[in-house]
Structure formats: structure tokens, C-alpha cells
């Protein structure tokens, strides 16, 4: 009885949210009459392709969770960075389409690097100011990174300082960063948003608890902060003095709507203008003439991790001197033929079509095609071929000798545990399919969906056989030594939990990030070789690359979403309904 009531309740809740949303928060524009004759603003208007950008309108973004802080060096979640990213300047930008590091959109006009690849000199743009008129300069950058290093500041961003030896302000518009070693992905570490140093204490004593962490007083981005109602909404207003030109829209609202169904309903009703949508909601968005859908490959993938070492006896991958420690092999999964048979036994396309509802793409190895320069498109994913898989197992000696339907070898049945985290329905479905497809080949897979905390414990403790999990937020650099280097095979804490051990890959990973100059064409061969080895060794069964979908209002002009940023040119967008 309670079940349908739940559905009814859900519908009622959606209704209530829609109705409740009638009391919509609207931004109050102080000084609405402020002359838009600002040099930068008129500049932006002229770049507008349609040429008829009308000021006004509010862009509302429905998000699933609320921000935790608006301080760019304390935030660690995407809900927070989505907001402060629109308020803070940064030293480097990321190309919205290719993911490459670029000065575009950042405070740097250009940069150069010394021949040994250690000293980076950034030349900043002149005339950029905070919204209170104070200049944005190299001191803000240095202050921000010094704050991260300060003992008074607790932040997960401390790792961004790795490899940095010094930061020197040459003059207000020139800053020099010296690295202790060449670290090609280190440049990305310099991309955090800056704190306005003139508002924070020089000794960093108030960085952790300044009121500006919750209500930033100044901005150097396209918007300025107006208000933040916890777990409800955050309102930003147009920054008239934004250096790339003030936005056309009056403001942007972030509204917290935890339920995906409610987000979709609000998107359809026009209450919100943009939101992420679930695979099963795609057809609804596509069928709505008022909405558009942006479909992009995310920087993540899903896989089945195969423990290569004995789960009964987890060992670290190397000792303190860096010598490899020989792992006690996994009784079954250390046999490459078994892993190869598994790789051929899964029907990846069918999994993508049915479990991911088409929102995925087959991948062959550990570098995603989104990182174009490092991606080796000549490696083909393993083809679905159950007969070949059966043949491989037969040849490797795994045959059903006792007639119980399960293959065995030397008295050991081909029995393995497969786990994933409970509550992730996609992974649960994937687990059922993997179990069924492998069992039909003569495996005896026990599949269990377990609590996430327990799963992580097993995973990091390296006590699992097979696990369905995924990586997200891999970013724009192909360096993933966290997953493959033996120094990251430490039971209990590190991410090479499959105990992948390959000296050549160890070398390649270290050399690939330390090439002076870091030119993509120089680094690419290293990553090509890594991909080939990982593809051949099969420590993971690579299932699918992730695809994300964003539904947004068709009423707005100028939106040009890129895979790495949806709103990189938000200041040029305009509400076409206002033009009529």
C-alpha cells in the first residue's frame, strides 16, 4: 500500500516544488541604470554573433547539491566550484573544446618556460580589477598559493603545491613559478581561483573563517555575489566591470533540487534553464521543442577491476627504495588467459545500449579520447566473442572436468566474487549482466552489491576479486600514475589496488610527465606505449567511457557548450525572448 503512495507522494512533492517555486527568488539589480558604456562591455556586445544581444533575463541552473564554501582554496566539490568559478580569476584556463591548457579566459596574457622546463613566467593582463576597483595582480596569486601552504589553512588543495619550489612576484603583472622537477601536469595545479588579497589578513589567520568565504564581497569574474540561502538557492548578479565584458543576463541563480525527476519537471516548465539529465530522461528532453540537449563525453570511465594479487595476502608493490616486491599471485585472475577470456566474454555494446541507455562508448585502454593528443585510436577494444573466450579457457586448461557446469583447473573451480556499491543502479545492472555473461561461459561468479564504505575498504585493502567501479574527473592530463605505478600499490590507502606491476609502465609514467617543455607531441609516444601495455595486460575490463547530458532552454542565444566547459562564454549569452 505504501509503495504506490510513495509514487503519489513523489508526484505531489514534484507538484509542491513546482508550485513552491512560484515564489521565485529574483535578483535585485542595484544601480540598474549604471551606464553600460563600459569599454569592456561594449566590446563584448560587438563579439555577439547575432548582434542583437538584449540585456536582461536570468539564467537559472538546477543543481543536485548545495555548495559548501565560496572560498576557492577550501572548496573540493563541484557544487562549490561551479559558483566560485564565476567569481574568481585564475592563472591558467582550459580550452572548453580540447581541454588543453590555454591563457584564454585566464588572467595570464601569455607565459614562457625556461629551457630546462623548471621556471615558468606568467605575464598578466593589465587593467583587470576586482569589482571594488582594486587591481587583480600577481600578489593575489602569490597570496592564494602561500595561503594554501600556510599551517593555519587546512585544505585538500595542499597537493597543488607539489613540486613547486618558489613563487616570485617580479612586478604586479609578472609572476614566476619555479618547479623542483619537470612535472608536466603540474601546470594544472596552478589553475585554482585567487583570493582577493586586500580583503584577507596578511598572516592568513582569517582564511579558514572569513565572512567572505560565505559571502564573497568582490569578484573578478562575470558575476558578483548577491545572496546564498542554504540548501535553497544562490544568486549572482552581473559584474558590470568584468574584464571580458559584462554579461547580458541580469544574473544567474543556482537552485538546489535534489531529485532528478523534479529537476526535469522544472526544466520542462521553464522554472529552470539548465540542468544535468539522466539517461532515461533523454527522450523527454528531445521531445520538447523548448529544450536543447548537450551531449558530451565526460572525463571518466567505468570498468571491472581485476585483482592480480592474492586477496588473502595483500602486499605493497614496492619497498622504500623503489624495488618491486614480488606479489603472491591471485589464484585465478593472475592467469592472463582468464582475463583475456573475460575481456572477450562481455558484450560491451549491449551493456552500453541497455545499462547505460546508449550514454557511453567503448574504450580500449586507460586514456580517454577526450585527451586527443595522448589518445591512441589504433587500439581496438576487445571484441565480444563468447566462442573465442570459451576456446581461450579450454586451451588454458580451464575445463569442466567434473560436469557441474563450472570450469576448473587442478581441482580449483573458476569461482570469483564480484562486488559493486549498493545504490548505484547502473553498476548493479552491470554486475547482473557481467555475472550472467561470464556464468554462461562456465564461470561461477558471485555478485553482491555492498555498502559503499565496505566496498572502499575491500578495494583499498585489496581483498576483493573483481569489482565494478569507475573513475571520474580525470582531467585533461593523461598522467594516471595513481592507478598503475607500483608506488601507489599500498594496501589500505592507494589507488593501484589491482596490484598492477609492470616495470616498463613505471618508467613510462615517470618519463611521460618530466619531458622538458612538456610538448604534447613529445609526451604522446609514452602514453601510446602505456595504453598498449595496459590493453594487453588487462588489469581492468574497460567497460565504457562516460557521457554526460545537459538539458537547457532553447530560448537563449550564444550558448556554445564545450566538453570541458558548458558556460565558458556565458557573458555573451542573451535571452532571445526579450528581443521580440
Amino acid at each position: 500500500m505504501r509503495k504506490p503512495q510513495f509514487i503519489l507522494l513523489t508526484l505531489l512533492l514534484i507538484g509542491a516544488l513546482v508550485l513552491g517555486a512560484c515564489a521565485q527568488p529574483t535578483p535585485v539589480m542595484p544601480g540598474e541604470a549604471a551606464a553600460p558604456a563600459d569599454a569592456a562591455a561594449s566590446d563584448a556586445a560587438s563579439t555577439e554573433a547575432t548582434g542583437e544581444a538584449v540585456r536582461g533575463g536570468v539564467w537559472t541552473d538546477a543543481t543536485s547539491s548545495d555548495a559548501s564554501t565560496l572560498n576557492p582554496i577550501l572548496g573540493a566539490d563541484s557544487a562549490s566550484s561551479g559558483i566560485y568559478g564565476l567569481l574568481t580569476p585564475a592563472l591558467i584556463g582550459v580550452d572548453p573544446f580540447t581541454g588543453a591548457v590555454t591563457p584564454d579566459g585566464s588572467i595570464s596574457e601569455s607565459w614562457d618556460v625556461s629551457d630546462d622546463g623548471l621556471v615558468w613566467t606568467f605575464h598578466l593582463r593589465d587593467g583587470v580589477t576586482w569589482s571594488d576597483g582594486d587591481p587583480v595582480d600577481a600578489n593575489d596569486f602569490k597570496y592564494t598559493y602561500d595561503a594554501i601552504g600556510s599551517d593555519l589553512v587546512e585544505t585538500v588543495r595542499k597537493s597543488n603545491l607539489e613540486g613547486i619550489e618558489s613563487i616570485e612576484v617580479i612586478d604586479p603583472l609578472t609572476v614566476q613559478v619555479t618547479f623542483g622537477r619537470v612535472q608536466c601536469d603540474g601546470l594544472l595545479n596552478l589553475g585554482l581561483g585567487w583570493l582577493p588579497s586586500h580583503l584577507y589578513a596578511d598572516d592568513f589567520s582569517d582564511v579558514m573563517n572569513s565572512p567572505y568565504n560565505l559571502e564573497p564581497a568582490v569578484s573578478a569574474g562575470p558575476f558578483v555575489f548577491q545572496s546564498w540561502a542554504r540548501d535553497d538557492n544562490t544568486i549572482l548578479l552581473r559584474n558590470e566591470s568584468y574584464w571580458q565584458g559584462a554579461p547580458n543576463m541580469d544574473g544567474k541563480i543556482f537552485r538546489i533540487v535534489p531529485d532528478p525527476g523534479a529537476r526535469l519537471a522544472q526544466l520542462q516548465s521553464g522554472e529552470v534553464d539548465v540542468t544535468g539529465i539522466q539517461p532515461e530522461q533523454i527522450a523527454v528532453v528531445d521531445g520538447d521543442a523548448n529544450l536543447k540537449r548537450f551531449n558530451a563525453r565526460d572525463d571518466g570511465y567505468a570498468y571491472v577491476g581485476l585483482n592480480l594479487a592474492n586477496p588473502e595476502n595483500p602486499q605493497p608493490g614496492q619497498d622504500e627504495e623503489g624495488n618491486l616486491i614480488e606479489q603472491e599471485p591471485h589464484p585465478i585472475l593472475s592467469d592472463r588467459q582468464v582475463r583475456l577470456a573475460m575481456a572477450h566474454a562481455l558484450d560491451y555494446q549491449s551493456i552500453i545500449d541497455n545499462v547505460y541507455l546508449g550514454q557511453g562508448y567503448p574504450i580500449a585502454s586507460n586514456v580517454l579520447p577526450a585527451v586527443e593528443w595522448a589518445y591512441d585510436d589504433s587500439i581496438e577494444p576487445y571484441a565480444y566473442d563468447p566462442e573465442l573466450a570459451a576456446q581461450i579457457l579450454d586451451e588454458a586448461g580451464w575445463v569442466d572436468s567434473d560436469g557441474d557446469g563450472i570450469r576448473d583447473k587442478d581441482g580449483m573451480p573458476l569461482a570469483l566474487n564480484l562486488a559493486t556499491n549498493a545504490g548505484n543502479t547502473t553498476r548493479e545492472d552491470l554486475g547482473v549482466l557481467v555475472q550472467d555473461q561470464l556464468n554462461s561461459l562456465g564461470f561461477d561468479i558471485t555478485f553482491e552489491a555492498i555498502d559503499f564504505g565496505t566496498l572502499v575498504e575491500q578495494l583499498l585493502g585489496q581483498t576483493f576479486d573483481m569489482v565494478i567501479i569507475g573513475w571520474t574527473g580525470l582531467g585533461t592530463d593523461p598522467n594516471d600514475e595513481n592507478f598503475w605505478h607500483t608506488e601507489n600499490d599500498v594496501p589500505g590507502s592507494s589507488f593501484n589496488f589491482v596490484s598492477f606491476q609492470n616495470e616498463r609502465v613505471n618508467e613510462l609514467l615517470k618519463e611521460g610527465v618530466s619531458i622538458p617543455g612538456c610538448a604534447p607531441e613529445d609526451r604522446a609516444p609514452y602514453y601510446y606505449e602505456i595504453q598498449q601495455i595496459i590493453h594487453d595486460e588487462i588489469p581492468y575490463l574497460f567497460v565504457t567511457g562516460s557521457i554526460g547530458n545537459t538539458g537547457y532552454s532553447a530560448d537563449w542565444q550564444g550558448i556554445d557548450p564545450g566538453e570541458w566547459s558548458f558556460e565558458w562564454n556565458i557573458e555573451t549569452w542573451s535571452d532571445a525572448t526579450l528581443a521580440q
Partner: protein
Amino acid sequence: MSVTQVSGDRIPPAVESAEAVQLRRKPQTYWSMALSSLRHDKLTLTAMAYILLMVIVTASAGPISRTLVGVGPNDTNPENAFQQSYLGPYIQWRLGTDPMTAPLMLGRSGGVPHWLGTDQLGRDQFVRLLYGGRVSLSVAIVAATISLLLGVTVGTIAGYFGGVVDDVIMWFINTVVSIPTIYLLIIVAAIYSPSPLVLTLFLGFLGWFGTARFMRGNVFRVKALDYTLAARALGARNRRIMWSHIVPNSIPVIVVVTAIDVGVLILTESVLSFLGLGIQPPTATWGNMLNRARNFLFLVDPVTGKPQAIHLLIWPGLLITLTVLAFYLIGDGLRDALDPTLKNKK
């Protein structure tokens, strides 16, 4: 009858005829009265028949799914995901009103008749409902039995001995009961991996407080009745009084409470599954089937624009609703039938 014996050897005609009138109506025991009352209660009988059918059908899930469908509960066929119910088209096909639909659906499923359609992985919903029902029902019934045994024992002891024993037991029950059960279960489910066995034990061991309270109240009542006093006067031991007099005379209360309990437990199991804290996939239960289907509420066919997965919501939802309702109705009907004080009040 003793009356006639007291009045002497010679039986007066008037008395004789009165006795003849009495004999025309069979002497009724408590239970036969209850049965005859039940016999007229069609609603309760229907509910009982439904539950009986469910128990039989789910208990024989294996043979039924082999003969009627031919696949197991976790056999996937991704090519045939979200197939609509085959039952309607099959009937239409048999009646000749739509000769094509049913054979077409069979072709896509590889010859397997999915009577109630398939889910997102092409698993047969009918088979999964059978196996899921087996888990849902047995968890609820076994857990209700555990709480019945515990509740009756503790309630009887508390009520019978009273005094300090009663105070301590009631203090314990009141303390635990003041923690909302659902939170207690959520905590427990988060700590222990909720397998069917674990869940059954926890539901049973956390569910007896209500029964115990009911029992205690009833024991207080029965304890004060004359026949208990008589038993005591005859020198019966405590144990004999409890088990021969008090417990049997509390059966009506227990039966009603337990029937309703089973319904509540099915709901609790569903709610936990709905929150993702119940029995985990791939084991099917009605609750986790419904929970999974909830995600597909918005899934529409890109070509026709029709919802694709409504059948995955309707069937588990319907079965949970009907089953819980049936247990409530049985509880209600039994109370009417078993409580003599409610006689002729209709």
C-alpha cells in the same frame, strides 16, 4: 446436562421440550462460532484465499517459472529489454483480434513468453515477481513468527508476574520503542550487509515490542478472571496457569496482532529496499524491484513517445498493495470472528 440431573430422575416434559429446542441448534464451541462467523465474511475469506494462493505460487516459483516461462530470475537478455507484457497480446492473438502482435514479441524474446514483460536487462518480470515474492513473504512471515514467540513470552511473563519484573521489562520496551523502528533498522542495515537471513532476524528481533505490550495487557485482564483464580486455588503452578489458561485465552489477540504484523513487515521490507537499505540486487524482492523501476518513470520510447517501463512499476506495486491489504483484512476479519464481545454488533 447437569441441570436435568439436579432436578431428579424424572424429567419434566417442559424441560424435555426445552432441551429438544436447544439440541436442534448444535452446541457451539468458541472455535466453531468463530468459524461460522468467518464463513459469512466473504472479504476475509477472499483475502485468505489470496494469501494462500500467493504462498503456494511463490513457494513453487522454480517449477512454475520453468514450465510457464523457461528462464530463471537472473537470466538476462539485453536485446529484449523493456518488453511490454505478453499476456494482453497473447489473449488478443488467441481471440484472433490482433493476430500479429504476440508472435512478434515472442520472436524478439528468443521464444520465451514474458507474460508480464521484461525489465531493463531483459529479465522476466513474472519470474522475478515469483522469486521476489518468495523472499518478501518468507522474510515477513518468519520475522512475524519470531516476534510472535518473543512477544508472547515476554508479554506473558511481564503481565503475569507484575511488580518489579513487569517494571523492568516495560522500562526496556518503552525505551526501545521510543526509538523509531525505521531509524533503528536503517542503522542496522547500514552496519550489516542486509542478506535475507540477516534482515529477517533483525525485523523479528526488533518487532516484538508491540506484541509484548498487547499480550501484557491481555494477561492482566485474564489473570483477574475467575478461572485463573480457580486454577490457582487448585494449586496449579505458575507455568501451568500461564500455558494452559492465560496463553490459550489470549490467542485471539495474538492472531490478530500477528496477521497485521506480517503486513507491516512486508511494508517495512519494501521501504528499506526503497531506501536502498534492504535486500540487495541481484536478489529480487518486490521492494527492490519497485525501487529500481522508479528510475524509469520518465523513460519513453523515442519513436512512439509512449512510456516504456510502467509495467515494471505497476506489478510489484500492485502485489505489495494487495498483499499488505490482504493481511490487514485478515487481521480485521479475525478480530471480528474471534472476539465474542463483538458478536451481533453488525
